[in-house]
């Protein structure tokens, strides 16, 4: 399945609560207030942790109902049994095998794929493959045109009918601030630069590919983030995977959230540092790892760690949760470690002026050592950046893998970022940017509240524009995707291995470009499909305030 997350840790336990832990200081007072929402008896846990939080932090993961969990397992069981049955029939040529096969000349080579790797793809993914990779043929804005495709052989192949399904409400693209546009200031500026510079660059930053546009972009980004210096890279994924190895190496320790994005995981692995995983957004777990690491030093040699780097994301794209940044920063300071914050989804989407999770919590950008983010999402472009102290950026300019070996960013893409960042900062002389940030925040709260009222289980933080709606059962993944498309709404559905096996979900990404009418239409249809597929699982059970069950198992991974 097109997975966005790569889990190092085994599937987490069935129930998942997330509450701030009194991790940072022993005397921090903790208070809980239960708020009765005006419409329904919606209960949120607003927890202020020792005054670290300047704003309420409402984040909850409702427990999976037991019956649903059991039925989900049964569903997978049936699918697996059928899979074996069909594999058996394929083997005996009762059913036609549609897999692409090895060349005759190479039949005696060691098989390229192990059979169990493909079992899942062949027998589970193939059934609902039409919910992914849907090709679109317009700008990925609030509404999108999609190429109609049909399959006559149960999703093994697709044919395009040539028809275009017009004006699908797009709840899938990461177009948070609505900068995916084909008209307007950004497009015009990009077009101008394109005709002047051309599309490519044909060289690396360190050789002959350092254009004046790149320098301009980096200065602007540094100013936007409120950091001393910044550097931009051609791909968001590679920003993580090619720069973490420049920062840490053997003898260093990486503490990584269990739900970190694949690019962070890959970067950590490539670095050669020891990696330990803490529970998602669980500060108690993080503090224990930090304490143990410093007290016990490196395994076997007992030497002290050279440095400790904490890897977290601003908004987790599959959970819709927001990092507990005030607590992370307090911990990082207490234990003298460094913080690497990946703002792929939060930059532009959070904070009163779109400066990300740091601004959202009212913190100082200087407290985050490495500010990383992407331009793909809120800015409607491509690429990534790293911001921080001048020494850090100078070091990366010299030693980043990306600067030395990868082609630099395309000039029109750079221009799109420059104009959109200026728009967000209000430097274009309008307040369009700020209005969009506000619109997104309003849309987020409205959409989340309405979905909860309808009785769906919605994960994550109430301010997160990433909204996961729990589907649980494998059959409902495909059904939800198809039913929504039938109603002209494009949604993203995800299942295993992107999520734990029983926590399949649909994910909506809100955008400032969504109008209230669009959201209402979408909500109406979601409500209808929710009834049809019986997705309204929520029991809104009041969960007692206990720290999340925390076992002391840690997962360690050492590069060999």
């Amino acid at each position: 399945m097109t997975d966005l997350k790569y889990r190092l840790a085994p599937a987490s336990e069935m129930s998942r609560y997330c509450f701030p832990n009194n991790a940072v200081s022993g005397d921090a007072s903790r208070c809980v207030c239960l708020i009765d929402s005006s419409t329904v008896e919606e209960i949120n846990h607003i927890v202020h942790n020792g005054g670290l939080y300047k704003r309420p932090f409402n984040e909850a993961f409702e427990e999976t109902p037991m019956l649903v969990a059991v039925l989900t397992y049964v569903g997978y069981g049936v699918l697996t049994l059928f899979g074996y049955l069909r594999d058996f029939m394929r083997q005996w040529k009762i059913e036609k095998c549609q897999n692409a096969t090895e060349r005759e000349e190479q039949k005696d080579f060691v098989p390229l794929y192990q059979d169990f790797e493909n079992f899942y793809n062949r027998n589970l993914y193939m059934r609902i493959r039409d919910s992914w990779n849907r090709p679109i043929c317009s700008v990925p804005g609030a509404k999108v045109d999609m190429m109609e495709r049909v399959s006559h052989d149960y999703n093994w192949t697709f044919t395009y009918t040539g028809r275009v399904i017009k004006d699908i409400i797009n709840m899938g693209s990461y177009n948070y601030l609505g900068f995916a546009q084909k008209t307007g200031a950004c497009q015009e500026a990009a077009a101008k630069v394109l005709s002047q510079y051309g599309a490519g660059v044909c060289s690396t930053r360190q050789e002959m590919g350092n254009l004046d546009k790149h320098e301009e972009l980096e200065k602007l980004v540094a100013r936007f983030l409120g950091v001393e210096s910044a550097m931009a890279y051609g791909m968001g994924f590679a920003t993580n995977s090619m720069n973490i190895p420049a920062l840490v190496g053997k003898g260093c320790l990486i503490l990584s959230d269990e739900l970190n994005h694949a690019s962070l995981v890959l970067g950590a692995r490539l670095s050669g540092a020891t990696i330990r995983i803490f529970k998602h957004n669980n500060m108690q777990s993080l503090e224990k790892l930090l304490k143990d690491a410093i007290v016990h030093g490196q395994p076997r040699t007992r030497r002290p760690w050279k440095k400790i780097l904490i890897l977290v994301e601003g908004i987790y794209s599959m959970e819709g949760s927001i990092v507990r940044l005030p607590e992370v920063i307090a911990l990082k300071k207490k234990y003298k470690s460094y913080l690497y914050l990946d703002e792929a989804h939060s930059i532009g989407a959070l904070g009163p002026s779109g400066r990300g999770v740091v601004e959202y919590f009212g913190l100082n950008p200087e407290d985050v050592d490495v500010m990383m983010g992407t331009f793909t999402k809120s800015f409607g472009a491509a690429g990534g950046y790293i911001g921080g102290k001048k020494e850090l950026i100078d070091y990366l300019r010299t030693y980043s893998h990306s600067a030395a070996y990868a082609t630099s960013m395309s000039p029109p893409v750079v221009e799109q970022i420059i104009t959109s960042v200026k728009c967000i900062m209000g430097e274009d002389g309008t307040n369009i940017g700020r209005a969009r940030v506000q619109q997104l925040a309003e849309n987020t709260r409205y959409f989340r509240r309405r979905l909860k009222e309808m009785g769906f289980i919605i994960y994550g933080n109430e301010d997160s524009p990433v909204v996961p709606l729990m589907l649980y059962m494998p059959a409902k993944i495909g059904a939800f995707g198809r039913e929504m498309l039938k109603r002209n709404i494009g949604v993203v559905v995800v299942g295993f291995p992107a999520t734990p096996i029983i926590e399949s979900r649909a994910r909506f990404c809100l955008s400032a470009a969504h109008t209230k009418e669009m959201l209402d239409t979408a909500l109406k249809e979601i409500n209808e499909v929710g009834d049809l597929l019986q997705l309204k699982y929520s029991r809104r059970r009041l969960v007692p305030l206990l720290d999340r069950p925390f076992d002391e198992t840690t997962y360690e991974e050492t590069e060999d």
Partner: protein
Amino acid sequence: KRVRDTRTKLAPAYHLILEGILILWIIRLLFSKTYKLQERSDLTLKEKEELIEEWQPEPLVPPVPKDHPALNYNIVSGPPTHIITVNGKECINFASFNFLGLLNNEKVKSAAQASLKKYGVGTCGPRGFYGTFDVHLELEERLAKFMRTEEAIIYSYGFATIASAIPAYSKRGDIVFVDEAACFAIQKGLQASRSNIKLFKHNDMADLERLLKEQETEDQKNPRKARVTRRFIVVEGLYMNTGDICPLPELIKLKYKYKVRIFLEESLSFGVLGEHGRGITEHFGINIDDIDLISANMENSLASIGGFCCGRSFIIDHQRLSGQGYCFSASLPPLLAAAAIEALNIMEDSPDIFQTLRAKCERIHKALQGISGLKVVGESFSPALHLQLEESCGSRENDVKLLKRVVDYCMNSGIALTQARYLEKEEKCLPPPRTRTGQICVELDCCFLIPLSHIIRISVLHCIVTSRFFH
């Protein structure tokens, strides 16, 4: 007989005691608290706090000297085409990989413009989640058709292409035979795969065969393991680090002899070698199906951004779920895909550009011969030429400095060259310091845009360079 009886009678007494102790011991072991190795130190809380207090980490990054050669980038103002303004000085560009001169091509630009008008800039999503555009599908189809393979898959970043493709197939326990001159992207891909890596000497087929034979004897010892151990040879078509080509026909022979799959990285040879620019397979006249996977970037000849892999569907399709850089990254901006499609159109419509490029390469290569102090490394038809010091001046650092003076001197004379940059600590087998020149550009409209006089200028220049720096 009696003696034996007393023995049997006596035996149970101490046996019982022993067994009793044993049972007690087992019970103790069962109920005793399990302890971790770490916690045996039994530090008090205070001691722990002291340790935390005392620990001083290294700084996040060490300071970079202000004069580090890689710190201060050249600033290019305006488009990086064949005439380029570097640090305010206008130069003829011999430093970018714009081999076919398509970067500044009006047709390519207008195709990109049209796409920009229709789709905007970004895709706002990975391929799986509404990030697949009709242009992506078209580009994949066109690339597959151009390379005459069943399927092609595009990535949004050239570096990530081979670096994602290798770990999609080769896993822990598998064996990869790789040329020691392989480029950095391959090295990172291999590292991510965590496979067993065996380096063979650059282009040395005897050395490769030696390793393959070694593996064969190893396999005979453990046939069970051998049945599930995948093996791959990873080579480059035209080596980025050396400028020479791989002996593909011999590699194919070895492939079938030892049943190893071949992955070929063609970033430099795609759109350069062969009659139609199909790369090293066309150059040698080899059936492309004999190569299991071909990977190339679209950032050199195609003058766009991104990369692609092509081959049989059986192999390529696997990356759509397993290629990390494909699944987890936003897709290629449509305007860049449109630019690549138009560049392919041009390559298909005018195959004579490849001959022109080749002729220019050979001329430059010839013109650069015989400069005392510098030698030209690489094939005569390679569009990336390396100039290397004939003898080192003692240390790598000094060599780099000397070459930097050569590059600066040329820059002042209006010729932009570049030093090939390497991360010295990271490279597996660090190539000697080199100046990379002669990214020779072929213009379509007027075929010999770089006139002879420039070539002469280069050689004259090098005479001056030679006299100034080497004597």
